[in-house]
């Protein structure tokens, strides 16, 4: 947790303090940006844009909350804006809801390490990936997510279900592959 002094120094544009604050949160926030994007370069773009916003809006931070959570919120908003702005994501963000299949609500075991799980999420179409990140990881409800993405709540709900279904299928597939490998190993 950074001290008030460090935050004050950052507001005063002291470069040493800004660098210290950046070092404190850079890797965790890069993790956030990485989950929302498809490439490391895009993630770094979002991170850079996000930290510029952090340093220019730091005076608005109220010391009653957690700075990490505040920065994370800025990163998420920056990531969403970035995806909506760039053509390669823009199309995928507007998934046609009508084509969706019915989905199940089962909850398989997540027998993956963090990196593998993140890569599975990143393989989702961009729109699903974003909604899944917002709802399942950030803990936004459907109304908040719909507001952020400027979408219909029902669309968000159904897209989330669809994203969840794809992911559980992938997880099961991964699980059965692992089991097969374990079984063949025993023979």
């Amino acid at each position, binding site marked *: 947790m950074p001290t008030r002094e460090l935050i004050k120094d950052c507001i005063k*544009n*002291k*470069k*040493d303090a*800004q*660098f210290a604050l*950046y070092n404190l949160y*850079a*890797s*965790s926030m*890069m*993790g956030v940006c*990485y*989950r929302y994007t498809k490439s*490391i370069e895009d*993630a*770094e773009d979002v*991170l*850079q844009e996000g*930290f*510029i916003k952090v*340093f*220019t809006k730091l005076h608005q931070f109220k010391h009653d909350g957690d700075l990490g959570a505040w920065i994370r919120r800025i990163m998420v908003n920056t990531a969403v804006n970035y995806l909506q702005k760039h053509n390669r994501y823009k199309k995928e963000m507007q998934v046609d809801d009508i084509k969706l299949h019915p989905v199940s*609500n089962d*909850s*398989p075991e*997540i027998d*993956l390490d*963090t*990196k593998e*799980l*993140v890569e599975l999420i990143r393989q989702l179409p961009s729109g699903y990936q974003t909604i899944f990140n917002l*709802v*399942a*990881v950030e*803990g936004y409800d459907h109304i908040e997510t719909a507001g952020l993405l400027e979408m219909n709540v029902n669309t968000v709900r159904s897209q989330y279900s669809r994203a*969840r279904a794809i992911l*559980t299928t992938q997880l099961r597939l991964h699980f059965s592959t692992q089991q097969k490998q374990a079984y063949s190993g025993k023979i």
Partner: protein
Amino acid sequence: MEKFEQDIEQKLAGFNVEPSPQVWQGVEAALHQRRKKRFAFWLWLPIAFICMATTWLLLSNDKMYRITVVTATGTNAKTKTSYTTKTSEENGAATEANTLTNSNHTSTVTNTKSRQQINKGSMLLPTKNSKLQIAFTSPNTSTYQQNKITPKNVKEAGTSEILTRTNDTAKHKTAIATITGKTVDTLPIKDSSILTVQENKKNTPIKDSTITTTVTKKQIEKSRKHQWYIIGGSGISLVKNSTLFTGTTTSYTFNSSVSASPGVGSSSRNVLHVQQPNTGLSFMAGIHYETALNKHWGIVTGLRYRYIQNRQTVTDSANRFIKTETNHAHWLQLPLYMQYTFNAFTGTRLQLQAGPSIAWAFSENWLAVQSTGDYQYDKNLNNAAILGINAGVSILSNKGVKFGVLLEQGLTSIHKKGNDSHYLQQYSFQVGIPLGLLSKTKN
């Protein structure tokens, strides 16, 4: 929240990825750019202030009246009404109080019509055969007195003129000669040069009365007590490692262990040497205010903007040239000098100035040493307030224009951190133009 979502959240809580160093460079560069933009915005404030102050001074210069209070007594020949009029003036705003004895409304009107109003100062003059005594209650010692009618002594400019403070020497001489009936040479030309006559263009001169006056030297000196100057100049700036003139200026290599990569932060460093800055340029513009304490001594103060630029060479460990970095600094400076004036040669005077100044570096891009020995562009590595000592000599022409040279020696090191101290030394050529002269040119 279902178990699946909880598992996901838990699994991803500690997910970190190390970003590349380029991200911080990008953030740093963007923040630096924003600071520059913000500076450009704030720069308008002092510039706007200087422009407004200059405009105000130019416009208000005509209103600097010498006559502040006038008391007139007399008798109106037509109405036989005696009156006392007091008119006070300050910066062109006149107030008037009339006391009429044996008056009625009709006579007041007549009385008003019979008066002459001189210029916009509302100084009242009496009608024919009346007696006038005008006494100046300002600190000066001069008096105006209207004597009995002596038409033959009245010359063209006559009594319809009043003295105002401008710089028209020729008109002044005529006026003094007319009013005093003496030759102008009885007053030193240099003393009379700051007084002149403003003609009455609206009203007809009163030809059958005359005014005699005594203008003392003291009074004239008083009138040149305050002066505003627009100052501008340029010169060279040096950075030295001591405040003495013996300080070295060139080829000074900082500790050989210094590793630097300007503007890159703490990553991707190459081993480089940063040479002490070479000679650079400086420009200055501002406004000076001078007030005379007596005939020779005066005080000068003001507000000046100064731009300083110089270059630093970056070499590798074998002293091979890598690149040149240019430093820029923008200062606002408040000088406070003592000034001694003495006669030099015909029509000119010599002035010596010396005193301290305080400068506020409100923006800069200066390669500065950190406590670690690294070099970076960073405002926070330099001192924002720089104390200096100034000495100069200038020639004051008979029109009031100044030409001179000024030496400024910084007493505060420009770098806040690091073991080495670096002091700015500046030599500049300056020109000062009095605001009164600018105003006259404009008219």
